[in-house]
């Protein structure tokens, strides 16, 4: 039966998806099929809205897959994709290792403390992301605070070279994305029924076994959400590697920047973006399918 209220409820998220994802993606896809040119904007063919059908036909006849062929012919792009995915995977692992204990401690603390702790996790968002990453330059530099502290305390004799290496990139990423890992895990742990742990212990589990067999599996949705929230933006990360990383740090965000700015080749830049999206979306869809099937099997 037609229900306007229900239609409205569905319409809101779908129009969001349509206007903020599909339309921009369509534009990027269109540019990725065109050719670079010296004009404003710097690609051809361009759509002339007054030309009617003829213009649309002309637009489509100008499309080709040349840019995607170009990507496949140069191993630079694959190396950059792989290196980005690798950096993102390591970052996910590191944020999980650091973030889970934080979320766990927060969830186990007394109830009057929780809002304060939650606030402390969110607090860094009140300062610009750029300034926070920039601050790490001052901390990690060869004359930076960290090296000064280590030299002063006698741990090292020569300043450590951290800035402009992949180490600095990992430190920056873990620092920046930690809240995205902590918050979803905390949300699942907070709702965890304490009776379950008691029951496990009554049935002979040690505390660690109870944690491993009860707490961790029950917080799985939070862990998965946190991992995606960290993994997806880190793959395309540009600011952190360009500020903290060295020239050797190869990431797809940087390649995209080069295509767009140094080569002023918007079509190839768009093709890089389209492939990046496919690389991210296909495994995520497959993963969700598999999850759904597992859930159905359980029921």
């Amino acid at each position, binding site marked *: 039966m037609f229900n306007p209220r229900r239609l409205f409820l569905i319409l809101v998220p779908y129009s969001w998806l349509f206007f903020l994802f599909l339309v921009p993606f369509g534009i990027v896809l269109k540019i990725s099929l065109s050719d670079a040119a010296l004009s404003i904007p710097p690609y051809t063919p361009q759509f002339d809205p007054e030309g009617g059908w003829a213009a649309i036909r002309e637009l489509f006849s100008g499309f080709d897959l040349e840019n995607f062929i170009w990507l496949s012919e140069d191993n630079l792009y694959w190396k950059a994709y792989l290196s980005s995915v690798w950096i993102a995977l390591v970052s996910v692992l590191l944020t999980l290792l650091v973030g889970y204990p934080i979320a766990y401690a927060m969830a186990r603390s007394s109830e009057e403390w929780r809002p304060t702790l939650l606030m402390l996790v969110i607090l860094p968002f009140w300062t610009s992301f750029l300034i926070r990453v920039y601050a790490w330059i001052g901390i990690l530099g060869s004359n930076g605070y960290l090296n000064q502290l280590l030299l002063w305390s006698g741990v090292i004799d020569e300043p450590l070279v951290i800035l402009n290496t992949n180490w600095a990139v990992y430190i920056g990423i873990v620092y920046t994305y930690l809240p995205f890992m902590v918050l979803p895990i905390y949300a699942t742990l907070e709702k965890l029924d304490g009776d379950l742990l008691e029951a496990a212990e009554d049935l002979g589990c040690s505390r660690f076994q109870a944690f491993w067999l009860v707490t961790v599996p029950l917080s799985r949705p939070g862990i998965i959400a946190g991992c995606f929230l960290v993994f997806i933006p880190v793959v395309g990360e540009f600011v952190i590697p360009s500020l903290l990383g060295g020239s050797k740090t190869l990431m797809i965000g940087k*390649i995209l920047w080069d295509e767009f*700015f*140094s080569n002023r080749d918007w079509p190839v830049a768009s093709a890089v973006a389209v492939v990046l999206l496919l690389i991210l979306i296909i495994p995520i869809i497959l993963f969700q399918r598999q999850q759904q099937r597992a859930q159905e099997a359980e029921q």
Partner: protein
Amino acid sequence: MKRKTSHILAAAIASMTLALPALAEEVKVYNWSDYIDEELLTKFEAETGIKVIYDVFDSNEVLETKLLAGSTGYDVVVPSGTFMSRQIQAGAFQKIDKSKLSNFGNVWDDIAARTAVYDPGNEYGINYMWGTTGIGYNVNKVKEILGDDAPVNSLALVFEPGNMEKLAACGVHFLDAPTEIVPAVLRYLGEDPDSKDKDVLAKAQPILEAVRPHVRKFHSSEYINALANGEICVAFGWSGDILQARDRAAEADNGIEIAYSIPSEGSLLWFDMMAIPVDAPNPEAAHKFLNFILDAQNMAAASNYVYYANGNKASQEFLVEDVIGDTAIYPDEATVKNLYSTTSYDLKTQKFVTRMWTKIKTGS
């Protein structure tokens, strides 16, 4: 409920309108970082009543991408000559109405003749500053490492792996601009620095790959501070930026002495041009700004502050001796003869050079 919201909305709109100041006329300027004496902007505002919104960039590529995307919102932009020539072809600028520039007579003919290569008839831009790309170094550190006969006046200092290996410990920065570095390598090899031939361009790659492990960073603006505070001891960069580093070190009185040298092999002579985008929101104000900059005393104040030479003949009598008398800024005739200029790459060559640059920097 509905009435209440509409009341709140009305109140909010009313307070917003009250908070907005009377619309002042604005001119939006997009210039290179560390490239003007900010007092000049205050002076312009006081003289004309036009508010200056001033933004900065540190690479021609960023400016070009904004220009080619269109609707930058800027009234005055400052591309280098090579980049400007193809931006003119793309239709990015409007012609300058010289009848609105009462100070146009101050332009230095010699410089105008050179910039006409990029902008025939100088129809789209006026020269702001010009300079060279060369070697900035920490005098004592380099002497300490390479001895008294360190080749500070030669490109061998930065392109010879033996020298770079020794300098690596104290830190070397290169500009992250292949259009500046690749021509220098070609010149060092005795090739045409303006070559568009892929085989010739490719000759730069092994030279740069050999010194690459000893370059701490490729970056186009960080080296000013890095030289001044002793983080690095050599930078292959722009003349005025290095002289600003010299000045900052002297001001900080930290015992660091920075010098700039134009390599004896020759150096890239470049020109930064002030131009008005085709879709500038306020071209009237843009012309006023250009005319203000063309004023001999204002132009001299800018050069005295940023240590770059300018294309304004009349300004020279107001330049301090530190600037007009320094051959690193206003090179003597023999040096000028040894300088070269480049023209812009076409798309294919540009892609080839960028790809080579990525390979040199990342090893892949």
